[in-house]
């Protein structure tokens, strides 16, 4: 028999996490599907279960000097409705699943689920988001891009949970996001592409490029991003074939029931090329 805890405070949640393996339910729109049983029977939980829905102190969106903080239990719908949230994140969340799922699903849950097809992780990486991981031992901040390490694998310790996601302030000239799904709503990405740049006096000062659903985790390459820095727009345009060839090596798409390796690779590179060509 598994134990369950419907925590009403962060402290209670952290104490429950302290001993043993625990499945954390934060929204539950993925985990309850993964653990589903035949109709009429209880879910097939193989570990103790912690429900965070009633931890009211984890419902918040607030701004301070570090940037924007989103509490782990804030629903996707509430994040979408808050104009302080970066527009690109709101647009991304709005393309996830359907309204009823977004009313329950959380950003923290989407990150911790660590699906290769997870949409929001791509934007978290693009925006240099940080995750606050907490346990009874204390809290630590990690970069979102280092959090996922494999298919459904993260660096989260057994006794930790995601307490909040922090988006530092950024001053990009342009941010771009495209989800290539199978239809216009309620769709799992075949691939996605997110990019941002900062241009200062006709020179690239900052570049972020992230691909989703074409690797086991969002595909990003720091040294390639650094190669953009200092290029003028014309220099960058001359190097588009080079960057496209280089980024082709960064991704490793597969054939599956949703699309093909070939389609994913070609469209990912089409999107990159189109983004770079439109820089002005």
């Amino acid at each position, binding site marked *: 028999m598994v134990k369950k805890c419907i925590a009403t405070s962060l402290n209670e949640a952290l104490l429950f996490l302290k001993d043993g393996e625990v499945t954390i339910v934060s929204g539950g729109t993925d985990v309850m599907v993964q653990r589903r049983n035949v109709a009429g*029977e209880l879910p097939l939980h193989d570990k103790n279960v912690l429900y965070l829905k009633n931890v009211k102190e984890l419902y918040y969106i607030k701004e301070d000097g570090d940037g924007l903080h989103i509490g782990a239990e804030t629903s996707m719908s509430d994040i979408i409705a808050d104009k302080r949230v970066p527009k690109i994140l709101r647009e991304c969340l709005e393309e996830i699943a359907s309204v009823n799922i977004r009313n329950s699903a959380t950003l923290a849950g989407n990150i911790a689920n660590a699906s290769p097809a997870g949409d929001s992780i791509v934007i978290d990486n693009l925006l240099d988001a940080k995750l606050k991981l907490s346990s009874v031992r204390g809290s630590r901040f990690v970069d979102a891009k280092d959090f996922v390490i494999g298919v459904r694998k993260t660096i989260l310790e057994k006794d930790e949970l995601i307490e909040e996601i922090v988006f530092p302030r950024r001053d990009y000239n342009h941010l771009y996001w495209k989800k290539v799904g199978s239809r216009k709503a309620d769709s799992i990405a075949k691939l996605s592409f997110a990019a941002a740049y900062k241009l200062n006096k006709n020179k690239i000062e900052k570049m972020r490029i992230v691909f989703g659903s074409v690797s086991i985790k969002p595909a990003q390459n720091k040294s390639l991003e650094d190669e953009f820095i200092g290029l003028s727009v014309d220099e960058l345009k001359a190097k588009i074939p080079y960057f496209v060839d280089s980024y082709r090596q960064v991704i490793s798409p597969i054939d599956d*029931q949703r699309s093909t390796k070939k389609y994913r690779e070609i469209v990912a590179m089409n999107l990159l090329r189109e983004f770079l060509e439109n820089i002005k």
Partner: protein
Amino acid sequence: MTKFATSVKKVDNEDKCKGAALFVDDIKMDNMLYAKSIRATIACGEIKSIKLPKLPEGYYFIDKDDIKKENVVNIIYSDWPIFCTGHVNYYGEPIGLLVGENRGKLEELAKQIEITYKEETPIFDYSKSYIHKEYTKGDYASAKKRAVKVIKESFESGYQEQAYLEPQGMLVYPDPKIKDKLICTGSMQCPFYIKRAVMRSTGLGEDKVRVIQPAVGGAFGGKEHYPSLTGSQLAAAVIKTHRPVKMVFDREEDIKFSTKRHPSRTDLEALIDKDNHIIGLKAKIHLNGGAYRGCSGVVLSRALIALTNAYTIDNLDVVGDAYMTNTVPTAAFRGFGSPQTIFAMEMFIHHIAKDLGVDALELRKKHLVKQGDVTANSGHFHDPIILPEIIEKAISMSGYDKKIKEYSKPGCNKGIGMSLFLHGCGFTGSGESDLIKAKVKLIKDEKDHVYVYASSVDMGQGNKTTLKRIVSKNLGVRDDQVTFDNPDTDMIPDSGPTAASRTIIIVGFLMEKAAKNLKKIWKKGVRQEIVEPYVGPTYIKWDEDTMQGDAYPSYSWGANVVEVSYDPTTYQISIDGVWSVYDCGRVVDERIAFGQADGGIVQGLGYGYLENEVTDEIGRFRQKNLSDYIIPTAKDMPHLETAFIDNPFVYGADGAKGLGELTLVGGAPAVALAIENAIGKKVNKIPATPEYIMELVTNGKD
């Protein structure tokens, strides 16, 4: 323009909105057991051994040895076993049922069953024909001598999943009052099909099997034959356990193992004379029928008959085969064979026009079917045909004529396509008069309340409302003075299956006659009863062996125009406009007709550009749920504009003909033609997914 029949509130609206309507999964009975299918895990081979765990008290395993009479599902061909005979023919073939009180326990026990096989090499291609049909018209060989040009092409279509809201489910229980009598209730289209299937497998008599329809959440053909399988399986379980036994699939089990639309390949050859006229067409049609024939012969028949679609071509040489493959059997689905060949024909005639350098619409207009023309099967189009009016209306609604020119310019990334189509209403040929022989019954009680008895199932399409309206209107009584309860085979005459777009044209026509006859003899305050047998047009003659004669008693017609935009970066298609014009004789209820029109075109469009279902190396479906098997959502569809044009049919209720299937068959070619217009490459396959469009853009033919 048509003067619309007004709409009334659908009689099932309130119960369904409130959640009060009882579907089979809502029905719980005392002592009820659940069943779980135990399925083969290979595509082809002999079962060597089945080792069961020790079953606890009250748990049972039911298999072929528990079938009392015949281990065969009563469909047209008697080759589909209820439980595997020992030789597995597809992955997922039911070997037996585990039956018991607790569903969790059943799952646990199922995991402990050990089955060993001697595997054989499965077949997945079009190499083993198990049904062959053919017909000719005119003299193809001599036409070929006159031809100045011969054009050949092939077209392919994939599986389609019905994706009804309510998955398959069935409950069978012993009659509490009558010994040895079984009652079946479940998600169904054809109560009498289940009754006859259970009678055949159990050996029980007519008076010992009763089928009662609960609320049904959609079917689209998927519940025409499959419930005969589950009904027969559960009947065996009830005979063994003497307790009610229920089996309801979850979505994944339903998608993985229930019947779907036949994948197809159509090879075509057209003969063109010096005036750019199509003087001949040769076709070889391949349907993937799956492991067992079931109803594939009839689907093949309709595919062959529909081939020339809305066009008259004088010389034909048409052959078709249904092929055995080691996959889930395919069966009925809205359109029943015709969506495959109508897609092929619509694309082909456009490709011919392109190759000849002539305007496709002009070429089509020159070949349009007219009243009195000889059909593909050498029968006649007896009734008025208003295709020119339909086309004119479709063009004025959509702006097709201007847009097609504009969008044909390279680089504009927009496209428009128009499909023309027909659908034969009712069963093939004289089947309605000779085989089905439908009957309906009206009973008026002493309080002058009228009860309608027919075997037509309302699975959401609205016939509880429309058939009732036909009766009340013709009796001249208020709507609430007439009741139409869900069919119960102990109460109703057999008015045939709820299929083949026959409910309004055949059953509705009978209701009209019955009501008129009841009105003639109406005596206030007296119980009266009318039984009305079907008498169809006597001029309809059909020979199924030679496929010669009048293939259907009548035809409905239509045009769909679809406008798309195309994203050259992602190869994705967005549907921007949909305009439809239909001739279904006359509309009975406006809102219900629009419901059919909207649902049908969306299902047809999905078939054409989204709904991708493929099998893996052992014949398993790769898309197993509705996140991976993609049907359109409301966001994928623009506002749908639909018009109906009156063209009343003498043998239809108030002139009505069939509508249900008509609204689907033109969707796939219309969207495929629009995509073709947008990308400037020929589309030869549906669904035209972005992956396929990418291939076309790089390697396709202009």
